[in-house]
């Protein structure tokens, strides 16, 4: 080719080579809903009640309601206070949200009567710092927490167990897994449960699968909760997903009827991604999802764009909208597992900035899936953070004195729990007559980073074993019995304590997790009491001492050594 490009500066070349330029960005197109939260095509707020029924919602008469409007009007909005609350000027409500003198409960008394467009109108007034300020108060549980992913590119149960153990030790309150080969699910779910309990008794686990199998594993007590129950903001996309608000509400009750904690999943961008945003902004549609979840009576929601993060991430103000959607979930009193769980950017700087609106104020689960395995092993298609980022995360917590739910753990402790998790799973597999785990595998697991560091397993035998788990009707009780009889008494006790919780139903309440002493901690007994400086959750005392530790900190007493 003889054609020459115009000469570019060396600086441009440097900038061109920056990872951020591998990300994709697009212009807004509000008519089609390709816009974060500021759109002239979103409806204006309005509500009218007649005979105890909402007959007009955001400019639409009941006869014109689509099924989202109907469900929200029938179930989500408090009819008694709707007209009064929606009449309050949006700016007043926005100010209540950030005013430390107004309690969380006082805000909830107003938000329970708001329409979707009204909520949008309120949060549109708030900049990202104000959103964070509000999140700090509106988060349902006082103590923030984090959730990890433990998966394996080879679906190796040994890896899932030891990385779950290390993750639990590092602080994740919940652990989630999923599969490459779905038939591996029973073995991997068992591994996650056992590994999690070795790392820290009381960790809750889940395995993301299609509804029937996920529910079955839950009912058998092999997993403890579920969250991959997706909902969408327009009727057409909801129907494309082969569900309706009523089918999902029914499913929510089905989980509760088996004593299993559950939350829905939604997020900005999914409707426009599927081409059916009906001309509404991403945040408006997400607010409809949030209120639908509220109306279904599910205790919580995983949101923050989730698997569509590339869409809000590419438009102006998109990450502000993502922060706002987390806030809206919290301000209507739902547990919020706030995203940061999908590969988001080629730029580390951008990955970190995207996290700040959740990390700084704290949310119920800052990540709804921090990859507790290297991203190459992450079967959720990669997370915003993975095992390589552990030390950075811990340092950021220490720098800013914020609690992101993790902590630095010394190598010896890590190796100890990894080894124990592998041995516990080895003993349990032998006890249940599942394909053996060799001593070589235990050794490899203790010191491994990724799935490549493990001996290959006999996949055929594993799949037969997995099938036999289902056929033989193995339940959580069998796991407890196996662990107890093979000498892993403490792990067996932890698992039994988790199983006992489903009889009590305490984990069904909003934002519930289980502490290391097996106390259910939820929005009922750990109420967020933030009321300005010096109140609410503060990173102090023993926990702060814990977070001061890093891999390398020079000792003040003897600068020739490190503390740790």
């Amino acid at each position: 080719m003889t054609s020459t490009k115009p000469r570019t500066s060396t600086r441009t070349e440097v900038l061109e080579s920056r990872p951020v330029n591998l990300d994709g960005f697009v212009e807004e197109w509000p008519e089609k809903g390709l816009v974060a939260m500021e759109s002239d095509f979103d409806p204006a707020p309005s509500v009218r009640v007649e005979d105890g029924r909402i007959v007009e919602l955001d400019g639409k008469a009941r006869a014109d309601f689509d099924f989202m409007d109907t469900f929200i009007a029938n179930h989500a909005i408090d009819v008694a206070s709707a007209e009064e609350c929606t009449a309050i000027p949006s700016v007043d409500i926005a100010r209540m949200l950030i005013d430390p003198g107004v309690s969380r409960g006082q805000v909830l008394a107003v938000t329970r009567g708001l329409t979707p467009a009204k909520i949008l109108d309120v949060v549109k007034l708030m900049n990202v710092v104000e959103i964070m300020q509000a999140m700090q108060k509106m988060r349902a549980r006082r103590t923030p927490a984090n959730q990890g992913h433990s998966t394996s590119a080879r679906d190796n149960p040994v890896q899932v167990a030891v990385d779950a153990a290390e993750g639990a030790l590092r602080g994740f309150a919940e652990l989630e897994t999923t599969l490459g080969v779905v038939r591996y699910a029973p073995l991997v779910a068992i591994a996650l449960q056992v590994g999690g309990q070795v790392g820290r008794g009381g960790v809750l686990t889940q395995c993301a699968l299609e509804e029937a199998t996920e529910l079955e594993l839950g009912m058998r007590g092999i997993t403890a909760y579920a969250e991959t129950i997706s909902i969408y903001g327009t009727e057409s996309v909801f129907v494309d997903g082969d569900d309706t608000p009523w089918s999902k509400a029914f499913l929510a009750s089905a989980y509760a009827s088996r004593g299993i904690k559950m939350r829905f999943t939604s997020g900005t961008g999914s409707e426009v991604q599927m081409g059916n945003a009906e001309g509404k902004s991403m945040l408006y549609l997400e607010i409809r999802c949030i209120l639908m979840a509220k109306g279904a009576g599910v205790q919580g929601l995983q949101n923050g764009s989730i698997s569509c993060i590339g869409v809000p991430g590419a438009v102006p103000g998109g990450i502000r909208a993502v922060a706002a959607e987390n806030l809206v979930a919290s301000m209507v009193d739902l547990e919020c597992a706030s995203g940061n769980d999908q590969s988001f950017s080629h730029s580390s700087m951008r990955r970190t900035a995207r996290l700040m609106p959740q990390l700084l104020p704290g949310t119920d689960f800052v990540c709804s899936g921090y990859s507790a395995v290297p991203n190459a092993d992450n079967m959720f298609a990669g997370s915003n953070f993975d095992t390589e980022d552990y030390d950075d995360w811990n340092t950021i917590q220490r720098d800013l004195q914020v609690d992101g739910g993790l902590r630095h753990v010394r190598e010896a402790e890590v190796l100890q729990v990894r080894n124990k998790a592998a041995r516990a799973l080895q003993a349990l597999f032998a006890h249940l007559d599942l394909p053996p785990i060799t001593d070589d595998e235990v050794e490899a697991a203790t010191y491994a980073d990724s799935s490549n560091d493990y001996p290959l397993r006999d996949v055929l035998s594993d799949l037969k074993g997995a099938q036999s788990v289902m056929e033989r009707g193995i339940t959580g009780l069998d796991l407890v019995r196996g662990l107890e009889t093979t000498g892993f008494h403490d792990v067996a006790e932890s698992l039994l304590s988790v199983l006992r919780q489903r009889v009590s139903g305490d984990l069904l309440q909003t934002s519930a997790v289980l502490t290391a002493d097996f106390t259910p901690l939820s929005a009922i007994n750990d109420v967020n009491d933030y009321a300005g400086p010096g109140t609410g959750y503060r990173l102090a005392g023993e926990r702060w001492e814990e977070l001061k530790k890093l891999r390398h900190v020079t000792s003040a007493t003897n600068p020739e050594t490190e503390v740790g």
Partner: protein
Amino acid sequence: MTTVDPGRSPARLVVGVDIGNSTTEACLASIGPDGSITYLATDLTRTTGVKGTPDNTAGALTAVRGALERAGRRVGEVHTVLLNEATPVISGLAMETITETIITESTMIGHNPATPGGEGLGVGTTVPVGALPEQAPGQPVVCVVPAGADFDDVAAAVNAAVRRGVDVVAAVLAGDDAVLVTNRLDRPIPVVDEVAAVERVPLGMLAAVEVAAPGRTIRTLSNSYGLATVFELDPAQTRQVSPVARALTGNRSAVVVRTPTGDVTDRRIPVGELVLRGAGKTLRVDVDAGAEAIMDTVARVQPLDDAHGEPGTHVGGMLAQVRDTMADVMDVAGQPDVPVSEIAIRDVLAVDTFVPAEVRGGLAGEVALENAVALAAMVRTSRSRMQLVADLVSEQLGAAAEIGGVEGEMAVGGALTTPGVDRPVAVLDLGGGSTDAALLTREGECTAVHVAGAGELVTKLIDSELALDDRETAESVKRFPLAKVESFFHVRHEDGTVQFSDQPLPPHVFARVVVLTPDGPAPVPTWHGLDHVRRVRREAKRRVFVVNALRALRQVAPGANLRALDFVVLLGGSALDFEIPDLIADALAPHGVVCGTGNVLGTEGPRNAVASGLVRAHAAVLAEGARCPAS
């Protein structure tokens, strides 16, 4: 337990328990003081751990409890649990490829692309397509096209050269473009494509390209005299190229390049010796001599005392590993170690097979079916840990537990409960790792043998011969019948019958050869047709089970004469296979033997023979009847 007093009780409750390689079976019966037996219930569960080791206890207890539950009886009522003397049998498998095809100097391309172009034979000098513009007219040329070239451009270049008078007679392409190029030529020529390493085709050499019409095979390059004609060879040279012709037989297309010393050779790979000791002799046989030679040697050292393979070979490694595994299994805390030297290989089965392997020196990933030998070996030990199992069972159930007899004898006893069977009777227990035979004579004498090779070897043969590289699929091919999905609404079974369905079949099986598993049709990932897959499956079963059936029965038959057998009863998991019993029955029919799948107690099919045999033997002792002496 207080209610049971063996001295006075009118009937005692006993449970026979058979711990096999893969399943543990129980047979619950009540025995009257006169030895009369009332069978109450049976149960079957997976064997826990390796047969003959303390790990078996859990499975044995599960089976006993299961049988009790079915009969509505309590654990406390059991008087005696009867266990078989289960000696651990461990089998190993290995495969050695013993031939190798090598092409030197890139003499030949014979990979049979799916869609060659044109038809006929072209002979000329190899020239790169890029050099066609400089090629002088007159001399015939074979055009060689590198990877990445566009089919439109190649066709244009050839057409241009031909218009200039260059005699382009054939082409060899890297890409899958042969039809595309030929369709665009003014004058059609034979074209062979998908030659991945086309850059290694020698240039400036005389080459012949031949493509046959669809559905036909080449005639000239697969014929030694055809090659001699094309390349003007003398008789000595013709003899030298005959392997090339042989290698190309059956192909639809081929390229042969004449180079100074190019050759195709079929080499035997030395893979070491097998040392067999028995009958006071020690014989050696080269593994690459093939299955027949190995099995002849094995026959000459019967009964086999031990076998070793040459260290550093697959066979040597496999035999050593089987021995080590057995040593590990016998290693139980509180029991004396069993030295490896005391663990002997007691049988070897060799089977000829073939493995598709990429040809060394090939330019297009040519695959040749290389010969291979598959070996199964079996190790037994006279020592067992069954006493430990018996002690544990006794402790857990609060009942007596005794070790009741040798498996083969018990199996025969159980087989006798099959309606229509009488002494003398032989049983064949078709398992996963070994095939066992036992004979009970009219006089009540019993002999039993175990031979190596059973269901697992069949799976391995299917896996390698179909190049599946997936044991799970191979296992399905072995276990279930085949069909071809002809549309979303019908399949054609392997017997030719057609079955329609109302619901559309899943897309991933469309147009594929499938195995009809209980969970629905599963595709067999192979380009072979249904008939080929079926032939491989049946041949694998024949070479293992039929060969072993005859071998094992000869070892127990009086005077090694199969005609001396009257009844042969098939038992074990593989007796439930949909065609193995027929294959064996067909093979035995010429010897006048009645052969069929057992139906133990008239209800259990080929299952539960040993467990119910234990009960029978126990009852016989109680009645002070004769007992089959140990062999």
